[in-house]
């Protein structure tokens, strides 16, 4: 194989995006990822449930000054910043409700975090939406302290 052909092949392989399955396969996977994400501060576990072409509502009053709709990559930076500021301790689902008419799944959870070394518990409201055969995160909001 000629040198230039090799280089061309290498460039093609390097620049071809990896097609990864964003969004959760089912609700069990979704709950598992959200528990891991918000329980141990793993932003990637939460972001993996966001569709790349959707915007997600994020709101953490008192913890992050910005709120509103963010793209998936922006949400990853947002959650990284959040978990740098607060140290998650636990994520315990309190209530889960399927709203079939809207294709949504509403989760209310108790989120325990450490802010500047002090423990704090907040209610967390997560909304998942059914898209095809997958579930994606559309909104994560925290109650203010």
């Amino acid at each position: 194989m000629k040198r230039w052909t090799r280089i061309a092949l290498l460039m093609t392989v390097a620049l071809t995006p990896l097609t990864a399955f964003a969004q959760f396969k089912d609700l069990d996977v979704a709950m598992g990822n959200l528990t891991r994400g918000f329980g141990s501060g793993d932003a990637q576990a939460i972001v993996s449930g966001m569709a790349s072409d959707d915007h997600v509502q994020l709101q953490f009053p008192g913890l992050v000054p910005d709120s509103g709709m963010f793209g998936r990559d922006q949400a990853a930076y947002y959650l990284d910043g959040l978990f740098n500021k607060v140290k998650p301790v636990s994520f315990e689902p309190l209530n889960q409700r399927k709203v079939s008419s809207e294709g949504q799944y509403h989760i209310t959870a108790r989120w325990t975090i450490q802010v500047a070394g002090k423990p704090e518990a907040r209610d967390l409201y997560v909304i998942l939406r059914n898209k095809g055969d997958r579930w994606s995160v559309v909104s994560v909001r925290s109650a203010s302290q």
Partner: protein
Amino acid sequence: MIRSRTTFLAIAVAVATAICLWGVSAWHANRVATSFDQESAKHFNDDVVHVRAEVKEIERQLDVRAEHLAARIDARQHSLMGLFHILQSSEPNRGARIVTPNGAPIAWWGEDLRALGIKTYQFDTTNLYIIRAHTLKSGDIVQAFARIDNTPGGNAPPRHIDEWVAGSVFHGGFLRQEPGAVRFVVEKRPDATLWIDITPHTKIDVVDRIRKNGRNTVAVLLAIAAIAAAIAVRRTGFSPSGRAEARPTLLAVLFVIAARSALLAVTVIDDPLRIFRFDVYGSKLLGPFSKSPFDLLLTGIALFAIVMLAGEWLTRLRLMLRIAVMLVASYGFVLLAENLVNNSRISSIPDHLVPTSTAQAVLLVAVMLFGFALLRLAKHEATFKASLVLPIALALARSPLRLVRSGTSRDAVTPPS
């Protein structure tokens, strides 16, 4: 050769300066950490001295204005409209009025005085008014005043925020002192006293900011040195026939990459233009090289510079290989545009010709630079026969494209069953 040696000597000096600055910044941060209380007290005292001087200067200007107005008004009898005319001024945030001894306004101009105007310092919800008065021969009073923004969190002069001060507010002595805030007297007059409450940053914040400022300076210096090196290498990298040589070109490209990488260390804390953070635009497509509008712009500039540096060398590649590179680059550009739309809270294309915000302008320029880089890749210098390859490739690709397009348009017009 001598010029080149001088350039590289200058670059070495810049790099050495950057390293020294890093050390100085680390030492300063350490010193502040160990003597934070004394340092902050000194800093706040200096700030108050500065604010006091500015307030005094404003008062002096107002005194001059009030005296000047009084001299003009007392000079002869004026009609009511004449009085309005005398008070006329275009100075921003300033105003003047003539009131009766019991405070009823007769004529006025400029800022609206939303206070009684009976003391030197008066406040409304979001403003401080500094008022200087002069009694006229008639017994009426002419007042010249300045409105100073006193919004919580604001930093309009004479207030300011820096690595020590998180915020400040003027008041007349009745404001409840916030926890951690430090209170100072700015000016004491027989009729009123002006106070300022300064809210300091925490010790961790101050030390962090000093470190970041030091790191930013070092990163910018290193980037400048790398760019200078790229230019120097490029200048010397031509063969006697005027053609760009491969090795110096590659070296120049590496210096551009080094400059761009050095600027990754820049962290801007106060970002009123919203170009250094992810909230307007932030992408993971190019990793840290596209984490904010400013990063995307720098990456666009770097890519454009690389393509311009290596352009001549790229034109010497075989046409098929260049077409492959072009196709991959075009695909990458489309991905970047798609990712930009998905991860941006504003459009990068202005509704009209002029961008409505700095963030939009930065995104627009960044996208244009990526586009220009792509166009430079497509620059073609070849024989007529060799040039036929591309039209033939496009013609072959046209049939499947037409099929896709016709399918899409059919879907668009066919009503759903």
